[in-house]
């Protein structure tokens, strides 16, 4: 506004300019230019690498890309181990949906339908596992439930069962991690559905003479179906993508594990074949989720009046509900408590006891001991920042185009943007390796694999859809009339953007970006495949420290991540963004 003479902020210096009908190209220039940038980036870093992986899967040579042959694909489908891994991934996903579904729906009904002392507190606690750091969290599960875990030990002490029989290994271990980390997908959607459910429908059912059981069966549960199905689809996809839990519980009978095993064996062709298969399954699920989202969800039709929560009057019922809800909630946050305890447990201070015997603050003291400790934290912050910066420019920009402009092929573009959201981190990593292990025009003619850039690029590819989604929500909520109003009041496009659009959408965009940012700081799945020793990400350092027996160091890092996530959640809540975005499956 200070550049009064040259700035076109004033629309109304009455000139005698003659306005002709702009040419076809002039009218579409903005759309064409932005779409071009978007398409180049999408092609270069998302679609192109996928094609590269498919290409490599067709190579006649397991290492280099030569010729075209379907032999390896034939072998893949004939191999018992690979067929088992496909079946293993799918059955794990189905079991995870059942386990997480029962847990999440149960907790949601328990904490939403009835009023009991401590309910509000339980609701907050039940959301806490969202803050569980992806890698350290799984370690906590392993140390709680796995071989030599504390829970089997405690049960042995109290009930006298042989602890050995209670150790969760392989599939059972993975399943408990999935149930306890993926239940929020159900908990959030079902709670929201229960809260917004139209209470008058229930009352109508009672007034027509239906019994309580019949009302539940025929009215309340059917209303929850969309929420449950949505939760189930996301859980299924997350489980298919899960890498960390199978890794730590040594369950190799899943596709993500097989990809990394093939890659370590040097058989990039086999890795590409599995990655392609897994990508196809994920894309099919993305399509199912999209078409499901477009169907109607039951919304409240009556005005005003929130859900009247039934107050349990019978003291017995009240005691029972309280006695179920509170311990259940505490079990849910056990992994976070475990990390906290580990971070203050002295080395060798927790042997044959339920609780540690020696406590120490020396792990935390490392925080002040010099830069070595902070290096991986800084690395991850930097790499995540770069990725999210790119995602804000591209994702938020794409969201603006998608929410405001009409053009052909919009649906295809939307799918292309959301695609990486469906891809497991392992697949993204393999795609980037196949695309950028040779000089590429999209890497300024250089090889990216083995350089610093590849990890932030992977984060960018993975988190761009998250930023796009949250931005799209903000843009869609912005009344287009506001922009028209500003224009008719005489403001230029740029002035309107700065003074009206940006102040109204920046919070939503920042909320999504911050959530993506914390996800990036803890990212393990793609990092473990792509990182270079000069730039060790936080999650890799945690893993290394834990394997060296310095679990306290890993736990302190874990607590830093918890603090970061909670900080971001509080900030985004403050920003007024109600929706608690559930991040990408990060395990």
């Amino acid at each position, binding site marked *: *506004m200070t550049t*009064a003479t040259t700035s076109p*902020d*004033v*629309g*109304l210096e*009455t000139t005698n300019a*003659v*306005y*002709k*009908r*702009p040419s076809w190209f002039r*009218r579409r220039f903005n759309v064409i230019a932005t779409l071009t940038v978007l398409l180049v980036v999408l092609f270069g870093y998302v679609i192109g690498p996928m094609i590269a992986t498919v290409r490599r899967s067709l190579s006649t040579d397991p290492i280099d890309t030569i010729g075209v042959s379907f032999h390896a694909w034939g072998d893949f489908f004939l191999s018992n181990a690979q067929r088992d891994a496909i079946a293993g991934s799918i059955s794990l996903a189905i079991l995870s949906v059942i386990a997480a579904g029962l847990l999440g729906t149960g907790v949601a009904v328990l904490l939403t339908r009835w009023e009991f002392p401590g309910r509000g507190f339980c609701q907050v606690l039940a959301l806490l596992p969202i803050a569980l750091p992806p890698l350290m969290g799984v370690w906590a599960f392993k140390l709680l439930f796995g071989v030599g875990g504390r829970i089997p030990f405690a049960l042995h002490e109290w009930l006298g069962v042989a602890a050995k029989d209670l150790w969760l290994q392989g599939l059972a271990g993975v399943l408990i991690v999935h149930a306890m980390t993926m239940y929020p997908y159900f908990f959030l959607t079902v709670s929201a559905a229960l809260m917004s459910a139209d209470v008058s429908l229930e009352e109508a059912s009672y007034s027509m003479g239906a019994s309580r059981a019949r009302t539940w069966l025929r009215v309340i549960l059917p209303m929850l179906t969309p929420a449950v199905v949505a939760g189930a689809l996301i859980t299924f996809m997350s489980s298919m993508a899960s890498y960390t839990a199978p890794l730590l519980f040594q369950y190799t009978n899943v596709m993500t594990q097989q990809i990394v095993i093939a890659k370590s064996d040097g058989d990039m062709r086999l890795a590409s074949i599995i990655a392609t298969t897994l990508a196809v399954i994920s894309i099919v699920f993305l399509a199912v989720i999209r078409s499901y989202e477009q169907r109607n969800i039951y919304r409240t039709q009556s005005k005003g009046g929130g859900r009247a929560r039934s107050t349990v009057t019978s003291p017995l019922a009240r005691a029972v509900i309280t006695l179920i809800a509170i311990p259940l909630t505490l079990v849910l946050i056990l992994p976070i408590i475990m990390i906290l305890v580990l971070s203050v447990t002295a080395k060798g201070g927790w042997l044959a006891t339920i609780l540690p015997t020696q406590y120490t603050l020396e792990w935390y003291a490392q925080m002040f001991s010099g830069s070595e400790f902070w290096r991986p934290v800084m690395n991850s912050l930097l790499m995540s920042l770069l990725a999210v910066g790119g995602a804000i420019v591209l994702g938020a920009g794409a969201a603006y185009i998608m929410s405001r402009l009409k053009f052909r092929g919009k649906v295809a573009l939307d799918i292309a943007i959301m695609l990486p959201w469906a891809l497991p981190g392992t697949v993204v990593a393999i795609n980037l390796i196949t695309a950028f292990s040779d000089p590429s025009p999209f890497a300024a003619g250089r090889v990216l694999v083995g350089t610093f850039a590849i990890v932030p690029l992977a984060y960018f590819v993975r988190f761009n859809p998250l930023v796009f989604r949250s931005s799209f929500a903000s843009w869609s909520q912005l*009344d287009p*009339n*506001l922009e*028209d*109003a*500003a*224009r*008719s*009041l*005489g*403001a*230029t496009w740029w*002035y309107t953007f700065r*003074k*009206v659009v940006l*102040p*109204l959408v920046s919070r939503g965009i920042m909320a999504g970006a911050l959530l993506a940012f914390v996800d990036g700081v803890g990212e393990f799945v793609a990092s473990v495949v792509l990182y270079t020793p000069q730039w060790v990400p936080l999650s890799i350092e945690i893993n290394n420290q834990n394997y060296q027996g310095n679990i306290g160091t890993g736990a302190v890092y874990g607590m830093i991540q918890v603090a970061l996530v909670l900080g971001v959640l509080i900030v985004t809540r403050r920003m007024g963004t109600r929706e608690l975005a559930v991040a990408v499956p990060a395990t």
Partner: protein
Amino acid sequence: MVSVTLDGLTKSFSRSGVVVDRMNLRIEEGEFFTLLGPSGCGKSTTLRMIAGFEEPDSGHILFNDRDVTYMPANRRDVGLVFQNYALFPHMSVAGNVAFGLTVRKIRGAVAEERIRQVLAQVHLTEQADARVDELSGGQQQRVALARALVYRPQLLLLDEPMSNLDAKLRLETRGALRNLHAETGITSIYVTHDQAEALAMSTRVAVMNTAEVHQVGTPADVYERPSTRFVATFLGRNNIFDGVVTEVAGDVVSVRLGDGSTIQGSASRTSPGLPLAPGNAVGVTIRAETIRPASQTDTQNVVSGTVTDVEYVGATLSCELETPIGAVLLDLIGAGIRPTLGDRLSVLLSAASIYFVTAEPAP
């Protein structure tokens, strides 16, 4: 002030087809001009083209003599009031009003004085520092009006600005808007589907239906002398019976209706250009409020029927009769009789109230 000329304005959308079809209109300087029509008739699209948010496929828009068809919206110097007000939620009332001034580099004491004035005009002096979401619907509407007027644009555009207000507030606002227009004299184009608003406020009204302007005229013109069948039925509560002209004797026109009965009207009361020769099909209209119970002496234009619906709406008693010529709607005002359901009633369709329009087009 400015006059607005629409010259052959045409706009179509890929989904809805032609929404404005070769529209010609001239809005004179200082007029309060209303585009009236049912939803989807193209009136809002016309307004958006005048404001500069849509480009016409063909045709021109002129402000005075200047072609503004392709002038960007922010250079047209118009004030626009939106149906949902489109107030900037992150700014105070004064902030919203100041926007158009700031953009025009009017600031400091001059701007403050203008804002103070315009807020006084719309009775919002007290609310200057309030957040817009703290205001009632009526207050928000006035902020939108103040925001559009404060920089004294050459043209004011109003897009159904009252449709979100309750009935009583709408009546008040109607008067306030009329006064404001009288004070400022600003050329105004008002879009509405509410005929009462259109008739009460406008200098002239353009009645639109399905992309076409059916009639342009003063409120009295369009109500009393509708030029098409659509205008006749869209405005007010009108009865329409189709028939065939049997005789034209001087001013007296006789029409045979569907049941074989004959009804008479005046040849001077017809849509312009309607041929009234024996054998021609015509539509016979008569407004509900002009129908009276027949007296003993009435012989011509009397129909009898059974009362099938009675609605007491305070000022009038609205009835529906089932008669041989079809259903007849009538509004009784202090007529002294209170028909009830099932009563037999004879009513007079006075020849002086009958108005001829085009016959229903053959299906």
